[in-house]
């Protein structure tokens, strides 16, 4: 055999047996899941991953939706933008295939699984007990927060049945890390869901080391307990939990109403979802900035009933008193946080980062706790005369921050003229109405309105508080995939 032939035969044999191209490709953007959670650093990453699930829904939408849906379904604001999924919510005519609602549901359970994975693996972590406790406390807060939003949106409100035995949401409390863990849970009752949230929060209370409000803190745990107690009408508890925060000198109101919105992680903040210029889910469409700010999509317009409410903040008696001394009052929540005061051409300016839409999502801040405590103290009192002065003081602190009283030369003067005291009201219900009005304006467009109306049994945009069309449908894909889950009334 000539040398050429030898070479050729070698080539042929090589050609048929050559290289292995199958084993070399390996993932470069992910780690193998079975390497799991072992070190403190692993748990830190996993916890950040869980917060990221809170920050961004599984469909990529911004968690700002958690806030704005609670407002556009009411008569405070109306969705005038193009996205049909939000038009449906604003019109209280949702369909089970609504992609935004589906994303919110899926995102919640994704975050819950991330939290469950941390909770189920903490026993394997060898570290200081304080470090382990901190992870446990934060993971429990994330789980509680997600169930809180799920039950707000996907169930009839607390109190819709006498014993709250109506359908809540499925409780998934075990982690899913392989297909063997899949389950098809049915819906727990609203009572059971609230019990679980309270259990998680009570367990978490005191465990957390972190004090920065972009992640869970003991104060955020307490604040959420206060909010839930308020919904449940447990006034003493609500007053006590909220009092823990209003009495904590780590928290203080900012000097102006805009300060909280223009700065991040301020002393007024209890919990907010952090965005940075490099990390804003879907900035252009579903961020709070995009939907509210008139300089961007401008999808949400402020409604007339809300604008009327801002006019009612000064009582007739107060107005008479002001006129008598030739003074006038400016509410900076109207002049600085709203643009335009005609319905249909009025916007909220709370979310001001037009360039990057990196405004944080305000979940909980001191004003809410002050108003919660004031309301709970008033409710807990038998009569107006029993309402402690602290309740008036809390409301007045918020009013005097927001309102500037000026004399006839335009110079600021003593604002005490617009403060409340017992003499301003005929009974405690009148005072409570004043607190709720203050709350409506102070916490406007931060995701409170529907919940506040429902817990007070008031109509939501002309619809009875416990009507089924205020409840989101369970997503179609969820119903399709799990026969044990019943659809909400009105969507079958």
């Amino acid at each position, binding site marked *: 055999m000539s040398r050429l032939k030898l070479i050729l035969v070698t080539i042929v044999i090589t050609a048929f047996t050559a290289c292995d191209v199958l084993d070399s490709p390996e993932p470069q953007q992910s780690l193998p899941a079975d390497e799991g959670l072992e070190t403190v650093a692993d748990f830190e990453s996993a916890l950040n991953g869980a917060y990221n699930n809170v920050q961004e829904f599984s469909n990529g939408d911004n968690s700002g939706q958690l806030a704005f849906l609670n407002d556009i379904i009411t008569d405070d604001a109306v969705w005038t933008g193009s996205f049909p999924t939000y038009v449906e919510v604003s019109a209280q005519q949702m369909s089970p295939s609504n992609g935004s609602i589906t994303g919110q549901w899926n995102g919640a359970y994704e975050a819950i699984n991330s939290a469950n994975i941390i909770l189920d693996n903490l026993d394997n972590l060898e570290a200081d007990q304080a470090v382990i406790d901190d992870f446990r406390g934060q993971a429990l807060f994330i789980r509680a927060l997600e169930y809180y939003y799920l039950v707000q949106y996907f169930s009839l409100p607390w109190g819709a049945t006498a014993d709250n035995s109506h359908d809540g949401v499925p409780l998934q409390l075990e982690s899913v890390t392989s297909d063997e863990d899949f389950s098809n849970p049915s819906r727990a009752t609203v009572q059971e869901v609230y019990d679980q949230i309270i259990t998680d929060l009570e367990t978490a209370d005191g465990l957390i080391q972190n004090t920065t409000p972009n992640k869970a803190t003991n104060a955020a745990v307490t604040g959420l307990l206060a909010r839930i107690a308020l919904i449940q009408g447990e006034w003493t508890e609500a007053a006590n939990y909220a009092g823990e925060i209003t009495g904590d000198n780590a928290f203080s109101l900012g000097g102006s109403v805009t300060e909280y919105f223009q700065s991040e992680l301020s002393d007024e903040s209890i919990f907010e979802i952090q965005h940075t210029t490099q990390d804003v889910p879907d900035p252009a469409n579903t961020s709070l900035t995009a939907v509210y700010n008139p300089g961007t999509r401008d999808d949400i317009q402020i409604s007339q009933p809300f604008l009327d409410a801002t006019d009612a903040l000064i009582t007739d008696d107060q107005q008479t008193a002001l006129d008598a001394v030739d003074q006038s009052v400016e509410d900076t929540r109207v002049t600085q946080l709203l643009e335009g005061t005609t319905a249909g051409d009025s916007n909220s300016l709370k979310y001001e980062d037009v360039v990057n839409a990196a405004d944080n999502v305000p979940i909980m801040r001191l004003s809410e706790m002050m108003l919660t405590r004031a309301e709970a103290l008033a409710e807990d009192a038998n009569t107006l005369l029993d309402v402690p002065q602290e309740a008036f003081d809390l409301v007045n602190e918020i009013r005097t921050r927001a309102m500037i009283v000026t004399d006839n030369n335009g110079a600021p003067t003593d604002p005490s003229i617009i403060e409340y005291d017992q003499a301003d009201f005929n009974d405690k219900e009148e005072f409570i109405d004043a607190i709720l009005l203050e709350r409506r304006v102070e916490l406007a467009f931060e995701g409170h309105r529907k919940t506040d109306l429902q817990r007070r049994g008031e109509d939501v945009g002309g619809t009875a508080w416990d009507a089924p069309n205020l409840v989101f449908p369970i997503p179609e894909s969820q119903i*399709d*995939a799990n026969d044990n889950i019943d659809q909400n009334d009105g969507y079958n």
Partner: protein
Amino acid sequence: MLFMRKILLVFIINLSFLFLAQAQQTVTGSVTDAETEEPLIGVSILVQGTNSGATTNVDGEYQVEVPDADAVLEFTFVGFRTVTEEVNGRSEINVEMFEDLQELDDVVVVGFGTQSRRNIIGSVSSINNETLTESFSTTIDKALQGKTAGVQVTSTSGVLGAPVSVRVRGTSSINAESQPLYVVDGVPVVSNELGGNFGVGGEGGVNPLINLNSNDIESVEVLKDASAASVYGSRGANGVVLITTKSGVEGQSELNINMSTGFSNPTKEYDLLSGPEYIEMYNYAYGASLDPDNFADTDWADIVTRTGSVQNYGANVSGGNEQTQYYISGSYSIEEGYARPNQLEKFNALAKVNHKFNDRLNVSLSVNPSRSDNNRIPTSNQVSAPYTFAALEAPVISQFLPNGEPNDGISPDDPGNAFAGFNGTPYSNILGNNITSVTNQVNSNGSLTYRFPQNLEFNTTLAVQYLQNRESARYATYTTDGYPDGFGSAANDEFLNYSWNNTLTYQNEWDEHAVTATVGATFEKTDQTFFNVSGNTFASNDLPTLNSAAEITGGGSFIDSYGFQNNLARLTYGYDDKYLLTLTGSYNGSSRFPDDNRYGFFPAAAIGWVVSDESFMDDIDPISFLKLRTSYGITGNAGIGNFAYLGLLGAGGNYADEPGLALSQLPNEDLGWEQSKQFDVGLEYGLFDGTINGSIAYYNKVNTDLLLAVPVSNTNGFTSFTRNTGEMMNEGFEFDINANIINEPDLAWTVSANISTLRNEVLSLPAGEFSQGENLVREGEPIGSFYVREYLGVDSENGDALFADEDGNPTSNYNAAPRKILSNPHPEFFGGFGTNVAYKGIDANINFQYSYGNEVYWADGEFMATNLSSVWNQQTSQLDYWTPDNTDASVPEPRNPGVAGLNGSQSSSRYLQDASYLRLKSLEVGYTMPERLVNEYDVRVFAQGTNLLTFTDYEGLDPEVTPSSGANVTQGNVFFQLPQPRTLLFGIQLGL
């Protein structure tokens, strides 16, 4: 590997039959075309029963050694009927050859080899260059439309260079890839949609086939059945498209030049409300009393469209001698789309050289560099897409502000801006958006063939595809996406795809036996690298790059790769040229599957019978050719994510500038190949000496072990889990017919037509049904069936939109109406027909394409046919809305949704439409100058129209549309995709 060894053994046994030595004599002669009497160059002459032969030279002359005086010579030439001559002791034999109307002896590329059309018993459609260039299309895949049965080609958009959906014999998968495998000159190429990387603007993908020049393409073959596709077993389940580029042929050097220029328009535009009509409707809905005189009346659609233009220039030289042949081509084209500012510029070169080192060794090299420079517009799903925005932007918004500046959609100086949904206007976006997508591609391919003495041929081909897509986007401060401080982003995506194909082919004929056997091994690896950056806040709108961005807002990079390994074998056997058998098998591995399931075996068998060669057919004159064929086999699909079987902790889930990890994928060690089991039976016929020829085929394709994202209860934190489960079927009949009605030197007239039926059914879905938007996947129904609430029109009493409740009775309560399957996006039948006429120097062809029974969910309507449910402009059809004075209306009452809720604009059958259509796809008239006018040159001038007329009841822009090339479940669910351009071209072709 065991079966490969067996096949090698078969080779060796056969080799021992081979050796024969004989005394020799010489025969010479010439070969001419019987009609033109011109010499034929490159005719191959084979001494029957031997391996020796010759080809004719530039004068059509040949010289061949024959073993003895009784030898038989076989003259074959592409496009001509084969001639056999017994030598009978002659030393000079002159032969006239006749054009073969049946094209039975055409050589057809079949994947790792070629076969004559006559002997193919798999299902292979072949489309030649002439057919491909009958219409003007930016990408080659589009040119296949309507040309052959069983291949359904659908545009995703009329944007220049948009991806095209190609479905060979139906949709074969639910969640995995359904596009065919593209193989260029024997090498599988990366044909993913490229680009579309940006968070803002979200430009849609670019078709990677954009870089192929249709003038350089010799032919396109579509491998449709299992027998044909199974040599590409692992990736053959969706069919295989083989693209063969032109090569030089021995003989006189040729120079061809072609130039054309023309213009384009959209095939359809919407009729929209004028400013006063809009105000009138608004006043009714909102109880307002605005005066239309206070507002503008702007025709936005007119502002964003223009008459597009096309210019094409191309030249190629080819030729060579017996040792070396070459083909060199270059082309340039520039298209301005009708949608401003869409523009596409393409540069393409191809150089191929083939050198016969000696009788045994042949080497060839081809290099194909190309570039396309695309001025993109955002995909239609973006509000910043010019036409989408133009259709939706209220006409009462003015184009310019009173100060003469373009309106930015925000300024209080225009009262119409109260109706603006967004910053920017369609016009300011055109001025301020600059989106480019540059695709650079080099395909190179080196091949070596060595002929061993014993009829054994070894070929090794090493190919490298380098593909780069670079995108940049810059939005000025006054645009929708750039407000308020400007936005920019840039991305680079690069693929390096190596493949190495090795084959060993044994070919022999003796007595009545003809055998070709091929074994091969191929290795393929693709690496992808990507990076991007984005930022905002620029000092000036005139600064185009990210270096000028004050704030970098995002960026990242990733690396990805996959590999395929394929061992293949094919045996074709013919007995007496009448009884044909093809056995194929491939043993394939993919890095996408876990170790235990990495390899799959994909066998196929086909048998054929040339009935017309039987003696009992001799008396049946009209039938000149009749072949029956049938095949059955299995092919595979690995078209899923690269690491779908691994449990993964995904990085990038960061929070508050701290790194995060989250479980992104659950492990699945059982994942394996999706399989396609296809039965095919067909009949190919020629009548009246080939005046009429065609084929009839039936196929039944069952896809099993579907790589299905099985829905799981979302409460698990996951919405689906990919398993091999479920079965889906496609079946259909395919008819192709060509008639050469007149074939005289001065007059030729041919007619051709094809029709395909298609029936898709999901056979088994153990995991249960699921829906995506309006499309449903349910056992017993076609994939992607439209599953919507039924709309019943307007309640004449009160103007309510009505839907059908559980019992089919009208209700105005939307949620009381159950969703039900009303139709599906698949055509009942589709195809094309056309005719060619040539009279003296004049030639003309006309082609139609059609589709019948396919429905489209027209999501545009949820915005522009909503009886004004929001600020968006409406179609003029909405003017017939209900009022107390117009109770017999076709459109529900316009109402303020914030007060009265939605009135019929929700997803329902109101927007489900029959998109059957007939389209005059192309009309071309050419004139070839008489030789006496232009010396020896070939000069042809032509005019060519594409997409000239469309007949349809569909209300949307274009009935020929699907949301993306990868859409399986969501096909036919569209949103403002731009219609195809209507193009008119004038050109000249010169041949020297």
